[in-house]
C-alpha cells in the first residue's frame, strides 16, 4: 500500500486508537515535509517579487543615470531644439498637462455618472447587461484601437484635426472603463445599511446618490481616476496614430483669457506634443546626445506617473480611512 509518505503510514497513524505520545514524532515528520515545500515556495515567491521590483529599479536607475545631467531648470523651460544641450520639454509637459485636462474633464463626469447609473439606478434588463458587458469589453480593447477610432472619428469625421481636443478625448475614452469600474467598486463598498438609513428618512434616489453615494465613494473614485490618468499620460501609440508626431516649439493659447468670460477655448484646437511623444522623437535622433534627453524625459515621465500613483495611494490609505461605517 502506498499509504506511506515520508516514512509515515498515515492511514495507520490516523486509524490508530487515538493519539499517543509517541505518535507526535510522526506528525512532526509530516509537518516538516510540508514546511519544506512551503519554504521553497516562499523563496520562489520572494524571488518573483524581486524580479518585478528590480526591473522597476533597473529601469528607473538606467534612465536616471543616463539623463541626470540634463535635468536642470532650463530643461523644463526650454522648447525642443536641434541642439541637444538646449532642448527642453516645455511644450511637452504643458501639452501633457492640457491633454490630461481634457481627458479628465471628459472621462470623470461621464465615468462617474455611468458608474452611478449602473450601481444605483440600472434595472436588471437587457440594456443594462449590454452596457455592463460593454464596459468590461472596452477595458480590454488595445489602446492602438482607440487610436484608430480617434483617427477615423475625431480627426477626420468631426474634423478636430491633430489637436489637443482629439488627443484628450481619445485618452478620455481610453480611461472611461477604468473610471467606471473604480466608481462601481467604490460604490459597492458602501454598506447597504447606510443606503437604507437614507431611504428610510424619505430621501429620493437622487438625494441618496448626491448626499451619500457620491461623497462616500469619492476617495475610491479619485484613486481610480488618477490610476487611469497615470496610464493615459504615458500612452504613446494612440497619439502617434492620430498623427501628432510634430516639432512644436511654442505653447498653445492660454486657457485663461484676458477678458470676460476669462476662459478661452482656442487651445483645444492647437497642435501639441506630449511627454512620451517628445521622448520618442528624441530617441529617433541621430545624435547620441539626444539619447540623454530622451532618458531625462523618460525619467521625468516616470516621475510624473509615480507622483500620480503616490497621490492615489495616499488617498487610498489616508482619506479613505477617514470614512468608517
Amino acid at each position, binding site marked *: 500500500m502506498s499509504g506511506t509518505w515520508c516514512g509515515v503510514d498515515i492511514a495507520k497513524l490516523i486509524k490508530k486508537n487515538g493519539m499517543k505520545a509517541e505518535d507526535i514524532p510522526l506528525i512532526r515528520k509530516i509537518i516538516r515535509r510540508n514546511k519544506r515545500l512551503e519554504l521553497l515556495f516562499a523563496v520562489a515567491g520572494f524571488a518573483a517579487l524581486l524580479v518585478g521590483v528590480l526591473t522597476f529599479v533597473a529601469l528607473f536607475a538606467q534612465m536616471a543615470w543616463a539623463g541626470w545631467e540634463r535635468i536642470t531648470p532650463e530643461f523644463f523651460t526650454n522648447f525642443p531644439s536641434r541642439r541637444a544641450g538646449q532642448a527642453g520639454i516645455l511644450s511637452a509637459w504643458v501639452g501633457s498637462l492640457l491633454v490630461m485636462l481634457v481627458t479628465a474633464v471628459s472621462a470623470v463626469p461621464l465615468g462617474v455618472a455611468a458608474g452611478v447609473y449602473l450601481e444605483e439606478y440600472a434595472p436588471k434588463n437587457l440594456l443594462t447587461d449590454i452596457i455592463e458587458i460593454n464596459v468590461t469589453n472596452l477595458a480590454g480593447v488595445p489602446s492602438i484601437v482607440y487610436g484608430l477610432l480617434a483617427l477615423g472619428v475625431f480627426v477626420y469625421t468631426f474634423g478636430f484635426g491633430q489637436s489637443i481636443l482629439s488627443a484628450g478625448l481619445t485618452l478620455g475614452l481610453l480611461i472611461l472603463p477604468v473610471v467606471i469600474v473604480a466608481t462601481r467598486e467604490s460604490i459597492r463598498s458602501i454598506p447597504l445599511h447606510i443606503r437604507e438609513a437614507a431611504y428610510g428618512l424619505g430621501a429620493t434616489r437622487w438625494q441618496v446618490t448626491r448626499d451619500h453615494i457620491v461623497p462616500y465613494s469619492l476617495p475610491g473614485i479619485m484613486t481610480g481616476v488618477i490610476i487611469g490618468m497615470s496610464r493615459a499620460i504615458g500612452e504613446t501609440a494612440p497619439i502617434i496614430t492620430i498623427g501628432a508626431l510634430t516639432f512644436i516649439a511654442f505653447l498653445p493659447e492660454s486657457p485663461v483669457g484676458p477678458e470676460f468670460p476669462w476662459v478661452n477655448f482656442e487651445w483645444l484646437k492647437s497642435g501639441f506634443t506630449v511627454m512620451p511623444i517628445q*521622448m520618442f522623437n528624441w530617441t529617433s535622433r541621430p545624435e547620441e546626445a539626444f539619447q540623454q534627453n530622451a532618458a531625462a524625459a523618460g525619467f521625468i515621465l516616470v516621475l510624473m506617473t509615480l507622483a500620480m500613483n503616490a497621490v492615489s495611494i495616499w488617498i487610498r490609505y489616508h482619506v479613505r480611512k477617514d470614512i468608517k461605517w
Partner: protein
Amino acid sequence: MQETNSGGAASLVPYGPLSVSDRLAKKVLRNFKERVIELLLLGAAFVSVLTTVGIIWVLVSESVNFFDNVPIWSFLTDTMWTPLFAEPRYGILPLLAGTLTTSAVALVVAIPLGTTIAIYLSEFARPAVREVVKPFLELLGGIPTIVYGYFALMVVIPLLQLLMPELSGFNMLGAGIVMGIAIIPYVSSLAEDAMRAVPMSMREGSYAMGATRLQTAFRVVFPAALSGILSAYILGISRAVGETMIVAVAAGMQPNFTVNPLEPAQTISAYIVQVALGDLPHGSIGYQSIFAAGLSLMLMTLALNLVGHVVRRRYREAY
C-alpha cells in the same frame, strides 16, 4: 384588494443588484427631476456603448473598402504582408504569428510570475510588506510602455545576446519578455484582489485542519478565487495582444511568418503604429489596411473578452 409590485419578474437575489424597483420611480411630479437625472446618467452610461459602436463602425467601414480590393480569403491565407510595396501582398498571417508569438512569450513570463507574486502577497507576505510592495508593483504597470520598449532594446536584448550570440538585434523573445514584465502587475494585482476576496473563514477552515500556508493557498484559496484569477489572466492576455510600443521598438518590424521567438517579427499593433508614423494618406488602400489590421486585433480581443465572460460565469466564486 390585491396589489402586486410591478417589479414583478421574480428574481430571488436577496438584497440583489442595488437597484430601486420601478415602483419607487413611478411617482410623477416630484419625480420628474429624478427621471431627468436618471436619463442623464443613463446617457453617460451609454457613451461606453457608443464608443464600442464607434470603434466597430470605424474599423468595419474602412475595412469594407479594404476588402473590396483584397479578397478576404487571401487576407486570411496569404503568408506575406507587404501592403505598401509596389507589389502589395495582404496576408495577415505573418502579423498574426508575430502577435501570438510575442504574446505567448509575454504570458510565459507574466502568468507564472504574476501568479506567484499574487499568492505570495496574498498568503505569505506580512501585511506591512504587502502594503509597501503592492503599490510598487502597480507603479510597474504605470510606466509608459515606450520606456519599456527602449529598455528592451537597450538593456534586455543585449543581455540576451550575451547568452545567445546568434540572436538578432531585434527579436520577439526580448520584446516578449519585457512585455511580460510590463503586464505582471495586471495579472498579480487582479489575482491578488481575487484571492484577498476569499473570505477568511475559508482559510480558517483549512488552517484548522493543520494545513500549511502553501497547502491553504494552493488547495483552498486558489481554487476559490479561480474565476477572478482567470479574469486576471485574460486581461493580461488582451494587454499582451494589444501592446504596441514595446514590440514596435524591439521586435523588429519585420512581417515574418514565423513563430520562432528568436526571430524578428511584426505584430498587428506594431504595423498600425508603423504606418501611423508615416501618416498614410486618408483613403488609400494602405490607410485602409491599418483598419483591417485593427479589426483583426479587435476581433481577437473581443473573442478573449467573451472567453473571459464565459469563464467568469462558469467559475463564479461559490463561497
